[in-house]
């Protein structure tokens, strides 16, 4: 789908990235200044690499002697600031890049912006503007859609509201490159995760593998690390949903889908407790048999423990002292205890 190897230097900063990813949602994750946006702009043709090549969907858009201008690359781009045209109505904005005769109705319906069609952008809220910008890029029917932190300008509540729309866009089938520094968004949307740091691509792989890798987890920051589980809702009760996941059945709050709905659940490493004996009289609802796979000691008093449970894996962040006290070594059978409230609203997605 997307294959590139580029280098671009400006002042002290050098972007040097090579990458091959398939269809689905590829999330590019990294701290501010890692070069994520520069990478995206090079792909879209808004910035020019010093050297290298970029191939999208089999066509070389940049390479030796080739440099297609942005408007001929057929790559959609949703910017952090929505960049709607202030002199056009929402409808005219949506149709700006669309082929003649295309109706905005289906996309407007999907993004819940149908009532806004005759309005002007100046009257829209941040969340509405973001959705119109996404719809405008979608109606162009690009072969690749770049979303460059489309939710970064929104508050936490609005992000939670827009993520379901992004999930619908994802399920529409257009390959997406999703630039983000918010792990919740990445965990919910991505198939493939690309980690960037200081202008370099450091890791590429399936999102679940990378997020639960203790080595990488310590780099993401202890509170960012966690396992990403895929599950099926099998029932609701007392405000909790029972979800069958790779690691076993979990009872979690904040899952809405009907029975049979596929959901993603992110279990933060901080919210997992490890016990060496079956716990008795504990308030936690989720107690799963597990086995220690690896212990990764980071800097400071913490340690990341990777656990195998069922067919999946979990990540637990505990102290090094506990690791020593409980004698947690690979292959040791343990119990993983996950607090229900450990699964936050934003960490549950369809």
């Amino acid at each position, binding site marked *: 789908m997307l294959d590139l190897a580029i280098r671009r230097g400006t002042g002290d900063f050098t972007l040097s990235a090579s990458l091959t990813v398939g269809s689905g949602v590829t999330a590019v994750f990294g701290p501010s200044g890692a070069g994520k946006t520069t990478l995206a702009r090079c792909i*879209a*043709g*808004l910035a020019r690499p010093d050297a290298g090549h970029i191939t999208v969907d089999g066509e070389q858009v940049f390479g030796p002697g080739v440099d297609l*201008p*942005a*408007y*001929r690359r*057929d*790559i*959609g*781009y949703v*910017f952090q*600031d929505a*960049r709607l*045209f*202030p*002199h*056009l*109505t929402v409808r005219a904005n949506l149709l*700006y*890049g669309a082929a003649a005769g295309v109706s905005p109705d289906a996309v407007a319906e999907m993004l819940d912006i149908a009532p806004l069609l005759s309005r*002007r*952008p*100046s*009257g829209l809220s941040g969340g509405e503007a973001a959705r119109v910008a996404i719809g*405008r*890029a979608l109606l*162009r029917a690009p072969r690749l859609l770049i979303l460059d932190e489309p939710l970064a300008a929104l508050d936490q509540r609005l992000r939670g509201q827009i993520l379901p729309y992004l999930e619908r866009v994802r399920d529409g089938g257009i390959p997406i490159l999703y630039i983000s520094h918010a792990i919740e968004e990445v965990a919910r949307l991505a198939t493939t995760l690309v980690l960037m740091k200081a202008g370099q691509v450091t890791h590429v792989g399936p999102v679940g593998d990378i997020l639960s890798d203790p080595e990488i987890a310590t780099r993401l920051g202890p509170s960012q690390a966690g396992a990403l589980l895929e599950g099926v809702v099998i029932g609701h009760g007392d405000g909790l949903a029972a979800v069958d996941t790779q690691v076993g059945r979990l009872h979690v709050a904040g899952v809405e889908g009907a029975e049979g709905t596929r959901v993603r659940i992110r279990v933060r490493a901080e919210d997992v407790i490890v016990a060496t004996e079956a716990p008795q009289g504990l308030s936690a609802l989720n107690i799963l048999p597990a086995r220690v796979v690896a212990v990764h000691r980071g800097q400071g008093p913490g340690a990341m423990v990777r656990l195998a449970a069922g067919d999946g894996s979990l990540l637990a962040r505990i102290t090094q002292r506990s690791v020593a006290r409980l004698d947690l070594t690979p292959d040791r059978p343990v119990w993983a205890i996950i607090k229900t409230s450990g699964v936050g609203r934003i960490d549950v997605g369809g």
Partner: protein
Amino acid sequence: MIDLPPEAWEALSLSLRVSVVATLVSLPLALWVAHLLARGRFRGRGLLDAVVHLPLVLPPVVTGYALLLLFSRGGPLGAVLEPLGLGVAFRWTGAVIAAAIMAFPLVVRAIRLAIEAVDPKLEEAAATLGASPLRIWRTVTLPMIAPGILAGVTIGFAKAFGEFGATITFVASIPGETRTLPSAIYAFLQVPGAEAPLRGLVGVAVAVAILAVLVSNWLAPRVAARIAGR
């Protein structure tokens, strides 16, 4: 109606024609130069800026004299144009050139400020939506700078309408051909006892200037509102 001698009406209609043509003819060039100055990144941009501003800072009589040298029968441009019957010296078309050149810096300045105020991010967004540079200019840039163009046209028209020094130096003051309204006022000033037509013409000049500003002030917020979508 104001009671004016026929030569005064002649001067008024000539002045209107000269300033309208001068404004319209210089507008495309002014748009292009304003674009170069606002967006261009090339060697010699400072020099271009200085040359464009020259008529604003030079004494008008110097500009008129320079035009005379260029366009007279023996001048480099006149030597080419005169044999073809396209000569402008001492013709109303010469008055158009003088007026256009004097108004040019003001028109460029107004449009340039408008272009500099356009957010290039919007043009970038249009490119990612598949719009060619020409389409971007037509559908994004042009609507955004429309109020600036309007302001430039107004001030350019007013400047052209009032132009005197360069015009009289370049094309003299031939009744019916190059005697524009300011030249006519000057001519009436030289004749004793012509106070009545003189006052009438001055009144007309003031009225045209005020009218131009009023029309522009009336249009500007409407254009701006259309663009901002309020």
